[in-house]
């Protein structure tokens, strides 16, 4: 029982981070048909800005997180104004957008490296504190991440379904032409999508830095493939799907190590479990888990 709780908890923590990062990627794809290869670097940026504010400048940790989310939004806003908007107006194709996104990622990495250095960093939080829960060891930082990530996921879901701009985003994703002629301010929708994506990227970076205990400038890049897997699993372009896909992926990877699964899958095969799950799902539901609903946000 304690093993199940332990792996379940570990899976929920990993899954919640995947979900938050994946929903930003999925939102961008649904609205802009853009595969954001720079998403991993927004994670790194968020973690480093939070580190700079909370450790170097000794500001309040939660205040630092909020500022890092604002910074993520700021970078997204800047890129939208100087880059993406112009590319859209010039009718840049999918391949061009894909290449530019890759270029942005390759530019962001050395900028982060130049600004914050290459050393391994850690937040000023106690990463060793744990709680016993029915024999499982629940880490304090991971519990905090799970609580805040769950709250964030709920907020995102409510925002998309209830807020005016969330509804506009769904409408635009569903039919851009119809949304434009029906009075929806397209530039506002696109900007909102970028801002949400930037903020979520930064937040996921802080969460990832907290659960790992230490991080360096390669953090986001190394997780990018898992985020894309979560997006595809939950149906490309479906924000709710990305949330569920991320959670499921994290859970499958961690729970696969339980001894009831063929004695436990060796931990070095965790990515195999993740991608085998993805392939199996796509084999039976090529459009992803949420494909039949045809919900596009």
């Amino acid at each position: 029982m304690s093993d199940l709780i332990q792996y379940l908890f570990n899976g929920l923590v990993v899954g919640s981070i995947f979900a938050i990062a994946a929903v930003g990627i999925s939102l961008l794809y649904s609205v802009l048909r853009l595969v954001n290869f720079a998403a991993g670097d927004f994670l790194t940026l968020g973690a480093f800005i939070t580190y700079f504010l909370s450790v170097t400048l000794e500001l309040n940790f939660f205040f630092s997180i909020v500022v890092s989310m604002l910074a993520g939004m700021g970078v997204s806003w800047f890129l939208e104004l100087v880059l993406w908007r112009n590319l859209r107006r010039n009718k840049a194709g999918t391949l061009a957008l894909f290449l530019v996104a890759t270029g942005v990622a390759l530019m962001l990495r050395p900028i982060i490296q130049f600004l914050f250095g290459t050393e391994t960093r850690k937040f000023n939080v106690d990463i060793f504190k744990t709680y016993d829960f029915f024999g499982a060891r629940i880490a304090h930082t991971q519990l905090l991440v799970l609580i805040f990530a769950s709250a964030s996921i709920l907020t995102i879901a409510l925002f998309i379904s209830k807020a005016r701009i969330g509804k506009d985003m769904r409408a635009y994703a569903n039919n851009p032409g119809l949304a434009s002629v029906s009075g929806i301010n397209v530039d506002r929708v696109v900007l909102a999508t970028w801002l949400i994506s930037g903020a979520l990227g930064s937040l996921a970076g802080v969460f990832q830095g907290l659960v790992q205990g230490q991080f360096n400038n390669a953090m986001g890049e190394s997780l990018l493939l898992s985020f894309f897997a979560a997006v595809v699993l939950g149906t490309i372009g479906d924000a709710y799907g990305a949330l569920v896909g991320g959670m499921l992926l994290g859970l499958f990877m961690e729970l696969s190590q339980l001894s009831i699964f063929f004695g436990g899958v060796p931990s070095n095969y965790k990515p195999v479990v993740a991608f085998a799950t993805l392939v199996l799902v796509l084999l039976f539901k090529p459009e992803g888990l949420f494909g039949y609903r045809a919900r596009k946000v």
Partner: protein
Amino acid sequence: MKIKLVFIATALASTLVLGSVPAQAAAIDMKIGTIHPLTGGNADYGIGLTSAAEWAAESVTKAMKSARVAGSCKITASEDDQATPALAVEAATKLVKSNKVNAIVGPLTSGSTLGAAQSVTVPNNIVMIATAASSPTITKFADKDLLFRTYPSDAFQGKVIVAAVQKAYGKGVTLSIGARNDAFGTALANVVTNEWVKGGGDIGRKVLWNPENATFDSEAKLLTEGSPDVWVIVDFPDTFAKVGPALVRTGKWDPKKTFFTEAMNNEAVIQTIGVSVMAGARGTAAKSIGISADKWKADRKAAKPNTKETFVDASAYDATVLLCLAAIHGKSTKSSALIKSLRAVSGSQGGTVIPWTKLTDAVKAAAAGKKITYQGAWTTAKFDAAGDSSGALFKVFSIDTAGKITSNDADDVRF
């Protein structure tokens, strides 16, 4: 007739005399590229090795001038692979295709070395001397004799770890092993497992982790299951910085019952990971079997005062010097000549013993085409048929509660 004979004799004598003076030989301009992690968790090692290679090239060029051997030995580009195979392949491609280097010094890690060799240096016929790659896989790698290394194979280190654990805990205890899932980690984990079982011990858990994992708590849980008597951990600093705290959180792991490998033989690394995580642990690391190692450190500090030192820096110095001497010996920077001459100057075929402190003598001898045994600050390589350096010396180190590393020469193991 008499005048003709005198003329011929003079011409012959001149040819003989001039032929033996190295200054008259065609200039050798050896261009070397380096690949090491200059950023990321292994940057301390990479920066130290790169700086040592640069100093070596400068020293050989100076010695060439003193010996009146035309040409130079230069590090023309230093690339950063972040100890990642994919980036090592990119770096090697740039060095070979754009910088047109004659040979490469590095990479640091086994995964990067195998990646760069397989994809770039072997297909492009470029000689590479890895500086700290230790995987036994490299010995068997089909490299067309283009891959060498100045660092000893883990086939040795595995035995040293097992011997150190046996000395501390006896042969019949249970050992659990955790390793990074790459060429270095898996190979050394296998050597330790085989040696431990051969010695009559039990293996509790063998856990391999992917360095790019989001978290390591599940791996830490698996590794601490069954309460083993001792742990062996094979990892690099950047990954163990995440695995270590996860192990502490299990409440079942004890660093005092843990042996690490050479990557943790660095006090700066221990401070970064956290002294509380590492205090009391022990480990094994290769040690210089070169000559005048302390003098080398002092001279290097004087030459490159702002570079952080690591224990393995001299390995890159020797690798660079050997490549330069090979080019001078073979009077060519072509790979086929370098391969032949690397053995002629590294001592594989005997020859006059010349230490690194007498580089001018080494250059003169190499230019004269003589076989020499270059005694480096890290090793006397004597490259074998597989390109591995011969002989090895390992130390067993301990980490105290302040994060300081101590070792006792009496515990050293020589092969």
